[in-house]
């Protein structure tokens, strides 16, 4: 058994070396396929982060009439918190709102002066509501428009914002779906290209396979070195793809103009994500590479193992 395995490994590596250009092109194509896959992983994770941070900025604010008692506001806050759609509710009293307003405009003398002349706080108490999902704001807004709440509520910001919120929601959903679709398509294409490259490499060895069979080689003896070569190509491609993406990302974030366009695309998080997860990514690439390489070889050789 040991002799057989050591012979397989020995020949797998030796054949890989002797096939020369064939091995080189296989590794190159597989590297490209793996670059696509690592690119897709990064794109998906980073755009999800960006989308999440946009989602986080969407909210509804409820402004209360000045005569609304604070305990009423708290009971509304409680009832909102009990809605399944609601993630967080934040209370901002009129005093706090004024503090924030003053702080924001402390360098503007006209406003500071105008505020000083008022003897009453013009700012309203408010609740700031965040939903679990963007599409849930509509139902929250509807809840807030119920007549029994009307007595205290002056205004709900959703009415003015809801066009923007709905557009953002549609855009986010679209992005997620397009991302998923793109990922599936690209991953399939990359996988098929790699698969076919390995098959072509083996096709050019079909006569060799025939000869091995005539000399009395068993199927596994013929197949072993080819599968090993596929796996070996996968390992090399995995290493190459991670190295190349590391270099590309470093270049991308070193050049100001490129960095700017990356930030426009919402890909600012790429650098951080890539380098803090480099070993996990490498693991994935190894897995994809060896699976595609080994599996393609296994399937491709099978065709020539008849007779």
């Amino acid at each position, binding site marked *: 058994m040991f002799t057989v395995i050591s012979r397989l490994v020995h020949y797998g590596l030796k054949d890989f070396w002797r096939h020369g250009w064939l091995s080189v092109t296989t590794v190159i194509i597989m590297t490209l396929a793996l670059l696509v896959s690592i690119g897709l992983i990064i794109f998906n994770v980073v755009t999800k982060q960006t989308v999440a941070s946009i989602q986080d900025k969407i909210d509804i604010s409820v402004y209360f009439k000045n005569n609304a008692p604070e305990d009423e506001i708290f009971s509304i806050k409680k009832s909102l918190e009990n809605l399944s759609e609601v993630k967080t509710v934040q209370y901002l009293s009129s005093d706090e709102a004024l503090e924030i307003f003053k702080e924001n405009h402390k360098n503007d003398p006209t406003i500071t002066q105008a505020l000083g002349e008022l003897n009453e706080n013009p700012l309203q108490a408010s609740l700031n509501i965040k939903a679990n999902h963007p599409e849930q704001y509509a139902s929250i807004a509807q809840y807030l428009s119920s007549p029994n709440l009307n007595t205290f509520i002056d205004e709900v910001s959703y009415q003015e914002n809801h066009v923007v919120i709905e557009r953002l929601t549609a855009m986010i959903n679209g992005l997620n779906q397009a991302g998923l679709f793109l990922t599936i398509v690209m991953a399939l294409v990359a996988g098929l290209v790699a698969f076919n490259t390995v098959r072509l490499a083996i096709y050019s060895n079909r006569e060799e396979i*025939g000869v091995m069979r*005539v000399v009395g080689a068993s*199927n596994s003896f013929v197949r072993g070195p080819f599968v090993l070569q596929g796996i070996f190509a996968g390992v090399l491609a995995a290493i190459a793809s991670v190295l190349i993406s590391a270099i590309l990302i470093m270049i991308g974030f070193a050049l100001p103009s490129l960095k700017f366009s990356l930030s426009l695309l919402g890909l600012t998080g790429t650098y951080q994500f890539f380098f803090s997860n480099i070993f996990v990514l490498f693991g994935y690439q190894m897995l994809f590479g060896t699976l595609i390489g080994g599996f393609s070889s296994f399937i491709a050789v099978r065709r020539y193992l008849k007779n």
Partner: protein
Amino acid sequence: MISFQNVSKVYNGNSVALEDITFEIRPGEFACIVGKSGAGKSTVIRLLIGEAKPTRGRIHFGQYEVNKLKDYDLPLFRRHIGVIFQDFRLLPNKNSYENVAFALEVAGRPQKEIEDLTPQVLDMVGLSDKTFNFPHELSGGEKQRVAIARAMVHRPEVIIADEPTGNLDPFHTWEIINLLKKIHQLGTTILLATHDKEIINAIEKRVITLDHGRLIRDEEKGKYILV
């Protein structure tokens, strides 16, 4: 040890290659299969090594009934045979040593044995100085001698040669034929397919003549007689 019983072979349902062939080859024989191109010589050999299945009839090799062997059984069966072809069929990415050693490796022979036998056989075919050359660095005659070394290194009971001299000049042709005679003298059964009249007439062995897929003559110490 080898027998064909009423064997017919029809390719693709219409191309008749062999019709009702019956013959037997005893252990230790040197038999030639003779016939013009297209007579069915290669088909006989392909059926014998299980590369194709007969349409009708039975083929025995030792204890094997070849026509019943499954793909799965073929490798083990083929280790009893050594085969030589007109186009050499060496593994292009292996040097002479590795090509010969391959026939032992597929049978799982121990490394020590391989290291002893391989140079011995290469020496016997006169290629000690080409041990580490690759097929593309060898002449036709040398390639065929590597192929013979590979066919005999695992001491098969039979060596089957399909027009082994078809691609060689007269000088190298005789080199190969003499090698086959030498192997025969060492006790191996030889089955040689050829359409070379001079070889047949010179070696004076058994001749089985095929014509258009039919066996038309089977003689001990035969001559090449064809219309």
